[in-house]
């Protein structure tokens, strides 16, 4: 093919046609927003409001709990009715601030800055930090931390991740089509903050319209290259994206900054633009509500804290044959146990799977050592041995097979003909041995 990519990987059906033609559309404001104080990797926020207090949309309601943390803001205006723990999509219980919508749609005054590119890198970084921006591809790593590399690790390239390799999801795709200039502006801000001369946007070849729009938007930017990537899962994994675009390998156990790279998702880049140019904190995000179990698959602009049930209802509800609802994509997302969980900064999609796509009675067999998982693993691991060791509770053995280099993309489990839950065996082993 000649397109940039990484070694191995898999080709699951991408199913994106369900929602890729559906333009971004603001979702109805929720009557109640459940805003978690921990929507990121790192220290949870501390609430800065009290029960009964009236808050405006965009107002900070939780302050960062440390350097690796990000503040949270009210996504709607209204009264704080509760501060208590609520279940998240992944099943964890997290302290949340609940806001009852007063339907006044009152916003704090955003500090608009038309000439944002003339701000200093420090000022830009301050705005990004204050806006509570985190990686919106799903990892939710606070963005300002990535923008503060130690001196001994000079950064020379910023990558915008437009691969969107998870099946079904089209949120990044639609943003690249409808807001290409915002994404490019976000990238330019990132490049300025990091003092970097090379910017790249990597987009999988199954989104030709996005590639066209982004190329058009970046036409006058000689420092920015739009890279067409081969369609392959997990092309959007940070390490695989860097390998495909720059042919550099993040060292095992290391970070992209170790090889001079910062990667941000398309949605994050757009949010960075909004934070710096419009003064708007991260209070809404694009969510693909899709899957064969959803009546009208759509790409919605959603206020953080809106529940899954409301969004599903807005998309016509679940089909009769829907049995499973996933937060995120089907390869790495969580199956939710309840639809009353809120959208957070990292919720890229809500995917409803129908009965015929799910075999609830499926049993897994023994490993027949066919080696398909080895051919699929983007990290060059031997997933079969990881699963066998873990299954036998020989977790130290799994460690010898580079257990902690697995980032749980699920490629091995996708291809396994014995239907072994290899990733789950890996998670089990990881939780029971020290790195």
């Amino acid at each position: 093919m000649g397109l940039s990519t990484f070694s191995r990987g898999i080709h699951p059906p991408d199913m994106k046609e369900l929602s890729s033609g559906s333009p971004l559309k603001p979702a109805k404001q929720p009557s109640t927003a459940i805003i978690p104080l921990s929507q990121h990797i790192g220290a949870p926020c501390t609430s800065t409001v009290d029960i009964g207090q009236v808050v405006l949309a965009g107002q900070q309601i939780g302050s960062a709990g440390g350097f690796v943390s990000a503040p949270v803001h009210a996504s709607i205006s209204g009264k704080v009715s509760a501060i208590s723990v609520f279940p998240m999509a992944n099943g964890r219980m997290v302290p949340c601030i609940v806001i009852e919508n007063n339907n006044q749609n009152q916003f704090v005054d955003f500090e608009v800055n038309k000439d944002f590119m003339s701000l200093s890198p420090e000022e830009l970084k301050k705005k990004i930090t204050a806006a509570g921006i985190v990686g919106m591809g799903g990892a939710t790593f606070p963005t300002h931390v990535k923008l503060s590399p130690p001196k001994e690790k000079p950064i020379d390239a910023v990558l915008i991740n437009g691969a969107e390799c998870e099946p079904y999801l089209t949120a990044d795709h639609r943003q690249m089509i409808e807001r290409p200039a915002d994404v490019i502006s976000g990238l330019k801000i990132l490049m300025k903050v990091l003092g970097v001369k090379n910017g790249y946007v990597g987009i999988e070849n199954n989104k030709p319209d996005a590639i066209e729009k982004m190329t058009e938007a970046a036409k006058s930017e000689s420092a920015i290259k739009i890279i067409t990537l081969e369609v392959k899962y997990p092309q959007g994994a940070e390490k695989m994206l860097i390998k495909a675009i720059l042919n550099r390998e993040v060292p095992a156990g290391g970070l992209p900054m170790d090889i001079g790279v910062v990667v941000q998702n398309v949605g994050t880049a757009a949010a960075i633009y909004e934070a710096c140019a419009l003064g708007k904190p991260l209070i809404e995000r694009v969510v693909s509500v899709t899957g064969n179990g959803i009546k009208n698959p759509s790409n919605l602009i959603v206020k953080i804290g809106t529940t899954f049930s409301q969004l599903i209802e807005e998309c016509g509800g679940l089909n009769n044959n829907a049995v499973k609802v996933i937060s995120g994509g089907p390869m790495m997302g969580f199956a939710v146990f309840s639809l009353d969980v809120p959208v957070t900064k990292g919720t890229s999609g809500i995917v409803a799977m129908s009965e015929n796509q799910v075999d609830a009675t499926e049993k897994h067999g023994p490993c027949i050592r066919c080696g398909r998982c080895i051919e699929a693993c983007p990290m060059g691991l031997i997933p079969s041995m990881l699963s066998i060791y873990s299954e036998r509770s020989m977790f130290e053995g799994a460690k010898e097979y580079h257990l902690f280099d697995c980032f749980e993309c699920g490629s091995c489990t996708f291809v396994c003909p014995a239907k072994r839950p290899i990733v789950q065996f890996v998670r089990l082993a990881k939780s029971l041995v020290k790195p």
Partner: protein
Amino acid sequence: MDATLKKDNLLVSVSPHVKSEESVSRIMWTVCLSLMPALISGVYYFGPRAALVTALCILTALFSELLFKRFVNADSTINDGSAFLTGLLVGLNFPATVAFYIPIVSTFFAIVITKQLFGGLGYNVFNPALMARAFALITWPRAMTTWIEPTAKFIGVDAHTTATPLGILKEDGLDKLMAVFGNASSMYTELFFGHRAGSLGETSILALLIGAAILLYKRYITWHIPLSFLGTAALLAWVFGGKTGLFTGDPILHLLSGGMVLGAFFMATDYVTAPSLKAGQILFGVCCGAITMMIRLKGGFPEGVMFAILIMNCFAPIIDRNFKTKVFGAKKANKDKGK
């Protein structure tokens, strides 16, 4: 039913939530299908008794698997197709004239002792079908080396016993073999189409290659084991196989005769008993080819494919342990296991 009704009834499971269509049973049944040309050629050359022997093997395999699983109180694994495949392969490895109790006892040995007592599918060290043949060859050496002319389609009417090409080569030499077939090119043609004495499923190279093509196309097997196996055997046959000195051997004769093609494509590639890593598979194939030719040229048996694969089966786990993949981001090829 609407969204609110569904709320309390969601299915929760771990990611990934999508899986490929591939399954163990689909693989096994496809391999069975790919062996049908070989079975048909066996029936064509050796008559209906070939089909009967194979059917007996398959039935015994299924019955033994069922019986064992019942005995140990485990779920039946008949549907995964692996027992059927073992039975089919055992059948293809027998002479069509063999007495009926021999394939029955041998197949029982393959399923119960070689496969199930080692832990069942995925845990057996040795290829069950080859163990059945080895067991039969050692237990009933006469019956297992009594071959009939392929032209004797109607058994009992004019069934002539004869020797296999490799048997003639071993006992009487190349000149005698040439005399049997007339000349070299007609020998190659007869061998390619399978018009020779031998195990009922091993003789027709054409039929076996059709099956192998299916497996390669479906990517159920890759070139690594068959090519390294056949390549090594051909090279050694050419270098050491001649009577008149080095580099005078006939590699084509060796490739087309015995169980070489059946073994290289269908037996040595057995997932469970071969290495998983490609580099290891090449070493495995090279060793299989080398041992086969050592037995054929210097050993007491005319044919060595079976023993070569069984010997290498023992080494498969240790080969896998010593060939490592290049872990993404690791500095060197991953030799530092256990760090």
